[in-house]
């Protein structure tokens, strides 16, 4: 009962953060702000959703594997975001503030 309520809560929270990541990718004006939206809300949304599925499954090896996937995403997604934003910065992708500064 408590595990089911926790699972529903975690899955709904995860779905909200995944949706926020999508909206941020579509609506935000600038490459680095889009990076910011994806790197944080998407990671948290995936973590919450996978933990919610693990709560659905109950104590077993499958729940442990789901926790491993969640921890891996929690480590790997910010790393990939950092590597990509570093690559974009080195290649000279300009943000909005950079353009304003160079024009003014």
């Amino acid at each position, binding site marked *: 009962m408590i595990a089911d309520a926790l699972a529903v809560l975690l*899955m709904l929270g995860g779905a909200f953060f995944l949706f926020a990541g999508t909206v941020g990718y579509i609506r935000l004006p600038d490459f680095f702000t889009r990076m910011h939206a994806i790197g944080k809300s*998407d990671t948290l949304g995936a973590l919450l959703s*996978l933990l919610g599925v693990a709560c659905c499954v109950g104590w077993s090896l499958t729940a442990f594997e*789901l926790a491993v*996937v969640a921890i891996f995403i929690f480590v790997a997604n910010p790393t990939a975001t950092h590597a990509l934003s*570093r690559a974009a910065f080195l*290649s*000279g*992708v300009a943000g909005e503030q950079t353009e304003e500064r160079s024009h003014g």
Partner: protein
Amino acid sequence: MTSLAAALALSIMLSIVVTLVTVVRRPGVFDRIIGVGMVGTKTTVLLAYLGLLFGRVDAFVDIALTYGLLNFVLTLAVARYFTWKGET
């Protein structure tokens, strides 16, 4: 619980389709790369939900783990490749 998982899986599929359309329509190499990376993360979650729907979470979670690993390696490799070749 099954209907909730089905609804959330459908919402994730909708997000993936919208993101892919945006990736195709948007200029710039790095914007496309982060869009594809986000699709990969969402697909990992979607595989977990599909396992819940089909009642085979133990089989689908292995596929999800492999997909997450491949997505991470792909993003790092493409970031290294485009570091100096980016057309902004």
